């Protein structure tokens, strides 16, 4: 897959970087820290050191993605290869270069495949966040969280409400402690290594032999069995392939912090 991806990008126009500030406009610097994955490895809680990185303050919007498609017409609905995006790719748009509904210009773009998200990130001179980075950045409570309410409880509340007919705009839910918006409660988001967790599709297997290290949702391996919100994110990622597109699935980009 990596070879395919590289091959498909060679023809892209790359945006010129205009120096540090412009490159990270609209991004938030996430400080370095320790992330404890939701899953144990070899029956031990894991600590992962996360280096400081920049993360988009909000998910990529329909309007932003339209710019990308205009600059890279091979990513239009009519031209995209089925290898890189399934039939529902950008289904909510009226046409190749026409979103068709002004109300969603500033809403997150959804129905985009991993390949499309990855290409967009490259075009912007960025990359997709890794799962560890994403989870680390997402594990910060909203700045205006009701006192005493757990983050996972708030997330479950989101799933208890039906999908709105029109997806709300970005920055319409909450800002978390890092200053990042909508990590929960608006859409699911692609991460670079979305398929690095293997559960076998059945959430109850406790991780047989060869699966032990990878088994995600096998509840015996969970650090916190009450963290249902994490179970759901891992189950969701497990159900995806890189060319899948889903009506509630979008993405945001990340970049490294220059180590000068």
């Amino acid at each position, binding site marked *: 897959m990596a070879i395919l991806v590289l091959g498909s990008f060679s023809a892209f126009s790359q945006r010129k970087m205009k120096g540090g500030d412009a490159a990270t406009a609209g991004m938030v610097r996430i400080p370095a820290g320790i992330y404890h994955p939701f899953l144990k490895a070899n029956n031990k809680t894991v600590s992962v050191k996360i280096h400081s990185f920049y993360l988009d303050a909000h998910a990529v919007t329909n309007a932003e993605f339209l710019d990308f498609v205009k600059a890279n017409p091979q990513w239009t609905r009519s031209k995209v290869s089925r290898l890189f995006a399934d039939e529902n790719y950008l289904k909510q748009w009226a046409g190749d270069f026409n979103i068709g509904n002004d109300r969603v210009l500033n809403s997150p773009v959804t129905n985009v495949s991993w390949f499309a998200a990855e290409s967009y990130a490259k075009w912007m001179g960025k990359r997709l966040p890794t799962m560890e980075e994403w989870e680390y950045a997402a594990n910060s409570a909203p700045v205006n969280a009701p006192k005493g309410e757990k983050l996972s409880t708030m997330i479950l509340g989101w799933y*208890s*409400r039906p999908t709105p007919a029109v997806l709300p705009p970005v920055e319409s839910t909450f800002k978390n402690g890092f200053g990042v918006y909508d990590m929960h409660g608006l859409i699911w988001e692609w991460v670079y290594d979305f398929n690095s967790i293997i559960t076998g599709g059945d959430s109850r297997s406790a991780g047989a032999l060869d699966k032990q290290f990878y088994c995600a949702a096998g509840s015996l391996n969970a650090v916190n069995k009450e963290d249902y919100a994490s179970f759901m994110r891992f189950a969701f990622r497990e159900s995806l392939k890189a060319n899948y597109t889903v009506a509630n699935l979008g993405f945001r980009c990340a970049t490294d912090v220059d180590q000068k």
Partner: protein
Amino acid sequence: MKVTNQVKALNVLLFSMFFAGVLLLQGCFSTPASDNDSGKNLGRLAGEYTATLTSAPEVPPSKPWLKKPEKVIVNIEVIEKTMKLANGTDYTYWTFNGTAPGPFIRVQEGDEVEVHLSNDPFNKMPHNIDFHAATGPGGGAEASLTAPGHTSVFSFRALRPGLFIYHCAAAPVGMHIANGMYGLILVEPRGGLKPVNKEFYIVQSEFYTKGANGDTGLQEFDLDKAIKEQPEYVVFDGSVGALTGNNAMHARVGDKVRLFVGNAGPNLTSSFHVIGEIFDNVYQEGGSIVNHDVQTTLIPAGGATIVEFTCKVPGTYTIVDHSIFRAFNQGAIAQIVVSGDENPNIYSGKTKDTLYYPDNSKNIEVPGKISQR
């Protein structure tokens, strides 16, 4: 990512090798309890049809004329939607085919059940399906994990007859069941069950809402209550009142009634009872042992039972979980209205009402029969 893909592929490979080995062993030493167990003697499929699916409390008709195993196609769509849980109280259900419980599926022993599981594009969650009637890893759960906007297909042989639960097993399982993702599949013995006059489909389940029982508006799932096994609602067929009043089931005096009853849980065991009837037959736990003359039968969470009784006296018969506070405080009530002629030889109704004095010296009779109804 390349590495992990390889690991994934390796997993699949190892797994299929293991599975093939198991099949091989069974093939060699084939002395199973049933001829069908090895899958060898199942015979060729005689034909193919798409299953008729019904919503509770309806049950699809049997097909006793099908003497050989068929391929039965079962189309199920997962829909997440807000529906009424009780008067004034809504809940966002996750459903098979838009109802909780999901559709009733009726096949015969030896049939190949081909499941097409579609996940509505606007759903938020991935879903799958675990058939307790299936023999294979996860009961199909592994094979059927489906992202929103996709369809998964897998098939299994219905090796054993009985009444079985199916449910979603995507992480976190408890929440998927608590939100309404369950139903029943009946695997009839070849030729079908003995015909009766009425068949009904009932599934008991619990709902764990953030608000207390009776709180109005859209209620969210409450994880803490689910873990503590303290539901706000215990219901038959997905909501309070789904089988009472105008929604009650109906039968006539003389009818033989068969209830297919599942208990989806997710937590509680049901003490299933029909007030004013004694079960002629109880297929214990939905299996092959038939017990007679039973008042109350246990149904484990993730289990089912078939009960049969004969309507002899007209009236309204109330079905309860006889863990009785669940019935009268949390909603676990259903009704069968039996119409027809009275039968005073079996049940008189009230024949007398007298004043009562504890010293027993001055009983005064109130004249005239007072009918109960």
